[in-house]
């Protein structure tokens, strides 16, 4: 299992989406998120996109005001995770049209549905944007 958790955090450090693939209780989560966010937000553009924290490696990437952070174990290919973050953002872009923090906040469940189509139990399920989005679009159609 490669991916341990995925976080989306705005530049004020507020969590906008959190998906964990291993069990952690609320207090641990809050503490972990706080520590990671402090570490990542303190880094500048030139520094590399990887931060080691506890037993995790955090791969993060910033898009406008939103940080995407993925916690992985030591075996994972860091560069591939960066590429994965980009794929996630592109997928959200395709659905929301230039995704922003508010889209994710107000459509939290949709963001989760997309993630669900992309990652299961910490492994990548699908890398085609069309395949990821088709069940979600179907749902939209059915409910409208």
């Amino acid at each position: 299992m490669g991916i341990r958790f995925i976080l989306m955090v705005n530049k004020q450090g507020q969590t906008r989406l959190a998906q964990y693939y291993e069990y952690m209780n609320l207090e641990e989560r809050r503490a972990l998120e706080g520590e990671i966010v402090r570490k990542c937000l303190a880094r500048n553009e030139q520094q590399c996109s990887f931060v080691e924290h506890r037993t995790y490696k955090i791969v993060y990437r910033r898009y406008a005001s939103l940080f995407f952070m993925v916690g992985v174990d030591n075996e994972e290919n860091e560069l591939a995770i960066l590429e994965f973050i980009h794929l996630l953002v592109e997928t959200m872009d395709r659905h929301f049209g230039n995704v922003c923090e508010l889209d994710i906040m107000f459509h939290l469940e949709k963001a989760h549905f997309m993630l669900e189509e992309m990652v299961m139990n910490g492994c990548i399920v699908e890398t085609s944007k069309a395949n990821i989005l088709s069940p979600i679009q179907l749902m939209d159609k059915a409910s409208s």
Partner: protein
Amino acid sequence: MNPFSSGTRLRDMIRAIRASKTAAEERAVVRKECAAIRASISENNNEYRHRDLAKLMFIHMLGYPTHFGQMECLKLIASPGFPEKRIGYLGLMLLLDERQEVLMLVTNSIKQDLNHTNQYIVGLALCALGNISSAEMARDLAPEVERLLQFRDPNIRKKAALCSIRIIKKVPDLAENFINATAVLLKEKHHGVLITGVQLCTDICTISPEALEYFRKKHTDGIVRVLKDVANSPYSPEYDVSGITDPFLQIRLLKLLRVLGDGDTDASDSMNDILAQVATKTETNKNSGNAILYECVGTIMAVEDNGGLRVLAINILGRFLSNRDNNFRYVALNMLMRALAVDSQAVQRHRATILECVKDADASIRKRALELVYVLANESNVQTLTKELTDYLEVSDPEFRGDLSAKICSMVEKFSPDKIWYIDQMLKVLSEAGNYVKDEVWYSLVVVITNAPNLHGYSVRSLYKALQTAGEQETLVRVAVWCIGEYGDMLVNNTGVLDIEEPIMVSESDAVDAVEIAIKGHSLDPSTKAMCLIALLKLSSRFPSSSSRINEIIAQYKGSLVLELQQRAIEFNSIIQNHQNIRSTLVERMPALDEASYSGRKTGSVPAAASTSQGTSLNLPNGVAKATSPPLVDLLDLSADDVSTPNLSGGDPLHDLLGIDLSPASLQSGTNQAQKSGTDVLLDLLSIGTPAAQNSPSMPDMLSPTLDKQNTADVLDILSSPSAPSTQIPSAGSSSTMDLLDSFAPSSSKPDGNGPAFPSIIAFESNTLKVTFNFSKQQGDPQTIVIEAHFSNKSSNVYTDFIFQAAVPKFLQLHLEPASSNTLPASGNESITQKLRVTNSQHGKKSLVMRVRIGYKVNNKDVLEQGQISNFPHGL
């Protein structure tokens, strides 16, 4: 209504939360919402169920407890509609976890949904199972998942594949059942199924040796072909990532090849061509291409040796290392670490570049590089590496110095060619980063010095010089002071001068000055000062002419508020003044410390905690007792003869020593406030304590025959403890005296004749907690007893959410006042007090009895202690 539009209320809630300016406001909004959701849940309103859950998900993300919504997830999952199930499963995955019993309840719903005619519902159930399945669920539902691996829709097959990974990880014996189905998945064309199938195959191979053997023999070629096809495939828009077709799939395939090739020459041979092709042909302009290259290098390093490929791989890493993009440099350092095990010579070639990375501005890169440099070090390059690193130590970030100095020290220790070089390097590190190094570092330096008799003089002179320039580095001060104490005569007489040394002239008073400056340093901690006191005692014997000056310095600490210092000062002062005849024997040079007990950790990378307790006392954590203990033992032995009290037990001479200076005169001469109040306490204790002792059988130290001695010793504790709460309290007796102090101090300020006095009791005591009760009564109201309960923590953990509860029989009325705090600091540093008012309607007929229950959290774990109190004083 539309179940997927979030509903206005969810939006309203998010707006309200966003509009909150403070955390308190946010909490208030969340509390209100949670209340509304609970209400809605209890009304069992289907309309709002999904919306409630959506809100709960948001609240959960913010980090608030949402357990009460768990049953709602189950209800939604059990409902027939897809949209309800959708949100129900999402809620299940977010709000629940495999540890909760609720999961048992959901197994049946999942089973039904896995067999549903609607494939989207099947997909939902698979996804949930793959994310949260427990071992029991895995066992129950494995047959369904196996069947779904052959489902007609690829979107189901891919999810079933990942679900299988979860199942075989939870229940490894099931792995074999999945081998055949996995082999079929590897022949798929659909990328989603292929990538998940490859991951499943990798996991099966790591779990089951038979499966590994099977896939190695039968499928290596097939997997190589798949990789070849993907790598050579023409542009396909759906899977293209900046000019590369599905890098994610390629990376997964390379990972699988790594597992198959590791330890098997045939399999490795059959993948050589494709690895060479990927390593040479992959586009390197973009991140996606480099991600594949990086994975490919990892695979080349792991599979069986092929010289040509390895060179290729190391060259790729070399290119990464010189790239301007920090991400590539980081992964290169990461991979070189693994390459080192395979081909250390090739990695050594990049040593200079790696060393540069240690000085990078980026903390992540520095850390990786430092670890790499550390493993690169060997006998032949340790000198150059150490020089580079110590030079960098001067200019490095303060937060990096701890790690850096630890690694330098460890390297030096492991590979130093001789002791003098070792001592020199350690001295440099301590002078630059003495405040950052761990205790083990300077302990072992001391060990090495004591074991090098020919370098004693050199060491003490070098340390003396270093002390002049870097007197603010705590650990340097410790080692220097220790050596000056031990080898002060060599410093002054220039004994054993080496050719390489520059001669220095140090007079006896210079040496004493050095220690005096150290002990008067404001920034140094008490254990360093304690070491200074020992050094001074030793110097007083080495330099008889400075003895009186030294005695003056020591005497200044007789009034120290730190118990440790005060005790030492008093003892040493007495040794210098009254025991000239034994002093020189007492302060003889320390014998060489046992190097063997330290050698164990030379194999480890980082100095292990010095925890061996045999041999030297050097291992004591505070470093204070280190130098003292042997002389102290001597002291006790000798004085037992000397003071002509042959039947004294080991501890008593100590009391004697203390007793010497504990005359009222010396106490009163101190201008210190704490001492003054201490004297009062002494009087208090003596006057009040005596009657108390008659009444109370539960006060062991008051009743003990050595009452006077105990008290004096304890009073000493009390004198020092207010200012230094962290000093250990030596005996249980003294802590109960502390409680006496607590209780009598306030009562002495009340007017006299305030009702009869009752002795305090220890109401409850366990290994972790002690509760004492102090009693008072208002005059004219004999029925009402005011109990002041003091809780103190005997463990080294902080207790939080501390709650004290008490219950009494009907004839008593109990009123509990709020406690002073709900947090109880560790080690009895502070206590919580709480007042209880008990009215005894049967006063004089029945005596008090009470049951207590104390609950608190240690490290977030709930602890409950309870007991009955029946040792209330008579007549209360």
